[in-house]
């Protein structure tokens, strides 16, 4: 599996923090649908977010300057993501602390869930970059839908068949639609690929099929026929492949790629030869 250098921490960060925020967001959805709150899911969600954020520091060349990332909130999508990540984590920690005291305030899970959704949306918006076709469109939504789907599958597995099914079906439908749109956009990319990434691109449909089966189709089928904790592991594998494929199949526009495109045009054009 090859991908552009330096992006492994981003795959780990968006997988862990995405799963964690998805768990808190899905908890809020189930609470809104009338189910009791799963404290276990919120605790795991908060821990995953905290670990994910810690891993994201390893991506930085100068991690000690990380707080500078908050200096351009409102102007830089990355600053907004950092702000939302900290807000989401703080609300999650607050929710865990509140449940530890034995008190129950229904609005707190909803607020925590709302901030988790904003965090997941902000992850997608970081990659809404003008001129970078490979990361536009539906791929902006997949951190949100895949995280929430993982959360919904986990909560449904933990709480058993008695829990409402509406949140799960809602995020499953959204995720499947957004992912298929993203797949179509990736398949339409016509940019030259570096030789060390060519094999990965040749197996593109295999990886994207695996993601669809592991995160969408297989867990839902298992939940219906055999709801074991294995379902969570399968969905987690699907989520990791989702995040990995996002970076692995990204082909940002560069002058080198534009020249490759022009050379492709030369190869097929009827152009006069020098004597």
């Amino acid at each position: 599996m090859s991908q552009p250098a330096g992006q492994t921490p981003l795959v780990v960060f968006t997988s862990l923090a995405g799963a964690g925020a998805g768990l808190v967001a899905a908890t809020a959805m189930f609470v809104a649908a009338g189910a009791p709150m799963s404290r276990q899911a919120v605790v795991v969600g908060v821990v995953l977010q905290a670990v994910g954020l810690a891993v994201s520091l390893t991506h930085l060349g100068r991690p000690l300057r990380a707080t500078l990332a908050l200096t351009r909130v409102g102007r830089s999508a990355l600053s907004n993501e950092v702000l939302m990540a900290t807000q989401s984590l703080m609300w999650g920690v607050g929710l865990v602390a509140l449940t530890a005291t034995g008190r129950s305030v229904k609005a707190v899970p909803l607020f925590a869930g709302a901030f988790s959704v904003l965090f997941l949306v902000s992850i997608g918006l970081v990659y809404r970059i003008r001129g970078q076709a490979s990361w536009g469109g539906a791929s902006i939504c997949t951190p949100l839908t895949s995280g929430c789907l993982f959360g919904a599958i986990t909560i449904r597995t933990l709480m058993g068949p008695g829990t409402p099914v509406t949140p799960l079906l809602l995020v499953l439908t959204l995720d499947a639609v957004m992912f298929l749109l993203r797949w179509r956009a990736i398949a339409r990319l016509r940019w030259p690929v570096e030789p060390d990434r060519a094999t990965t691109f040749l197996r593109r449909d295999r990886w994207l099929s695996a993601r669809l089966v592991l995160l969408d189709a297989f867990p839902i089928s298992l939940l219906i026929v055999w709801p074991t904790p294995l379902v969570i592991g399968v969905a987690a594998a699907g989520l990791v492949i989702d995040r990995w494929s996002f970076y692995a199949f990204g082909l940002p526009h560069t002058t080198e790629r534009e020249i490759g495109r022009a050379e492709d045009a030369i190869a097929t054009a009827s152009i006069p030869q020098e004597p």
Partner: protein
Amino acid sequence: MSGAGFVLDLHRCVGCGACVLACRVENGRVESEAWRRVLPLNLRRQPGGPTYFLSVACHHCEEPACLNGCPSGAYEKRADGIVVHHEARCLGCRYCEMTCPFGTPRFEAHRGVVSKCHLCAHRIDDGREPACVAACPTEALRFAPASGADEGDARPAVPGFVDPAGCRPSLRFVPPKGAVRDGLFQALEKRMRR
């Protein structure tokens, strides 16, 4: 072109790489971290066919994507249009590598920060030309100070170089001359527009 930038004459550029070397010497860059690069077009795909060279570094865009995306304010656009990068504020997050549609900022792992061409701002402040321009033996690469006027028939896009993100780079190209090179150029332009 309103800000300072470069003009590259594709007819004059022979791809000698003197600009790359001069930049490296002036700014103390090792080969793998060079800010300027010379990219040949049509060497591999049609051997023996006409070739031209794109000598590119930072384009000091009017709407710089690197500056707009940077979370820590490490980039600054000077009054004369030069986009400078302040390493002391750089997190090394590499977001500018993603947002720049020209692949200009480069991450230096051993220093943990990104770096890029600053158009030899120190030389310009001293009234001199950038090192790459001063070293060009054919005068293919020229410095265009902030003036607000375009230079002759120079154009902002050629096959192999387009602005897909509305960054409005300050680099301008003088197209190649001669029947065969014109033929290549026009055929390519027509094909790339499809």
